[in-house]
């Protein structure tokens, strides 16, 4: 079978990464199909980056079986890396060089001729809307711009698979939406996206399928909608009582909704009908300082699965 027709694009069986005796990834099974957009969601230290680095063929697999394009990273790392694009968690740009130089030099690592590197650089900078910054050094650019340069750079080898480790962490909402839009376009062009994120809304926006990771393990897998259906009722009622009182007041709410989570700063009530639940709260004479009904999200799924909120 030729590696081009192999499906799935990524397949991992009982994938383990240990650093000394510390288990960063504790045996996960994952399959990503060509053209799919796949997410790893989880809190700090869940093992997302460790997984991405193994898939990116820079970090050796400790145990288990990993295939990318049907190839083995242990023996074919070079060939695999030639066909993927990597957006690492921390930008690795040369701050003293121009945007253009960063792009061209990176293309040279793939043995793409200089002229072709320049052609693609122009195209890609246009794609991430940074053409006017081509001659600017990296240093003075904003975080969002640097992130866009990193994404443009990762596309210089026209990868079939793009690995994005927290592509939008630290960006303001506007910059985040620009990036989401660009990633969505890449997906439409048939690029397979694998990304990690802390953000539920990002996963909901970008992923066809995702896994929720916690402490090196996969705790849930499915489409964002599936997970929400499976682990969280449709709506969430968020109540805020005066500072410190959330815990104490929660007892007044017994029996409302399917389930309740008490967080330090708010009480969450999961219900099929949030407004009805709120009416019931008021009917009991409980008066929170603020109340808000919203659709349940992956954040709620995560809370349900791990008992911890996904605050960043």
């Amino acid at each position, binding site marked *: 079978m030729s590696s081009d027709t192999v499906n799935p694009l990524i397949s991992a069986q009982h994938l383990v990464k240990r650093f000394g005796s510390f288990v960063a990834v504790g045996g996960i099974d994952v399959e990503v199909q060509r053209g799919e957009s796949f997410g790893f969601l989880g809190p700090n230290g869940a093992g997302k980056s460790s997984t991405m680095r193994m898939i990116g063929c820079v970090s050796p697999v400790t145990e288990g079986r990993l295939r990318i394009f049907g190839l083995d990273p242990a023996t074919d790392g070079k060939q695999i890396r030639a066909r993927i694009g990597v957006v690492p968690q921390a930008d690795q740009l040369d701050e003293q*060089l121009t945007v253009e130089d960063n792009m061209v030099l990176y293309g*040279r690592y793939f*043995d793409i001729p200089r002229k072709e590197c320049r052609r693609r650089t122009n195209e890609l900078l246009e794609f991430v809307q940074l053409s006017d910054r081509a001659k600017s050094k990296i240093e003075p650019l904003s975080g969002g711009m640097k992130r866009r340069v990193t994404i443009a750079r990762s596309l210089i080898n026209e990868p079939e698979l793009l690995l994005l480790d927290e592509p939008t962490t630290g960006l303001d909402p506007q910059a985040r939406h620009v990036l989401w839009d660009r990633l969505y376009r890449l997906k439409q062009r048939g690029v397979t996206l694998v990304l990690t994120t802390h953000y539920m809304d990002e996963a909901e926006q970008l992923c066809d399928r995702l896994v929720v990771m916690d402490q090196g393990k996969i705790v849930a897998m499915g489409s964002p909608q599936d997970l929400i259906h499976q682990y969280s009722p449709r709506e969430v009622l968020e109540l805020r009582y005066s500072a410190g009182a959330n815990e104490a007041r929660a007892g007044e709410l017994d029996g409302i909704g399917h389930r309740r989570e008490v967080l330090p700063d708010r009480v969450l009530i999961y219900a099929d009908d949030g407004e009805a639940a709120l009416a019931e709260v008021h009917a009991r004479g409980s008066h929170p300082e603020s109340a808000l009904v919203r659709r349940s999200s992956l954040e709620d799924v995560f809370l349900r699965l791990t008992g911890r909120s996904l605050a960043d």
Partner: protein
Amino acid sequence: MSTPAAVRAWESHFTLYRTIWKSNMLGAFLQPLLYLVGMGLGVGALVDRGNDAEQLLDGLTYFQFLAPGLLATTAMMVSTNEAMWPVMGGFKWMRGFHAQAATPLSPGEVAGGLALWHATKASIAVVGVAAVLAMFGETRSFGLLLAVPFGALTGVAFSAPLTAWSATRETDNSFPAINRFIIMPLFLFGGAFYPISQLPDWMEPIAELTPLWHGVELCRGAVHGRLGLGSTLVHVVYLASLALIGWLIARITFARKLAA
């Protein structure tokens, strides 16, 4: 047409240098010039008045004795600094080595690109010194053409092993100590300023083991046309071995660091 991987890795180091080449090259020329005028002419005037100076310096004036050694000491200084903070930066600050390792380049090729760059940087520095020596009648000779590669070789004999070591460090805490306790003593006791026969007897064999001394001997011999075949071979093999072994170990330490 494909370009060797290490050369492609080298391109980014060189491009970075191109952003500072003017000031760097001016420095590479002015520094040795000031040094030679100050030390060579100033101190030389005193030394040459000493009774048996000429005999101790093997028939050379102090300027003639001192100046060629500057090829080797400059290469040493430039190369050691290049093999410390920028290496740390490639792993930890700008993380350029990690960026390279995410591409088809292997860790060994990442290290290879850096080694090539170190050789380039040492050569640039040594050419700067040679240009200054060519301005003075006492050191102007075709031997300078030979002294340049000898100087560059001295440089990589330092940068290669030190690069291998820097790649094992998590912080730059130890770097100033390297300058203070290794490079500075070598600079002072490596035969650049006076013949090592002037050292206490017990120190002399130690000085002969230091790479700097071999580099100084090579450069001085080349400039004044006094190189014997046997001793040249010993010096070159010694320095080349250091460079080669250092580079081989760097390939390993780079692989460890990049493939965690």
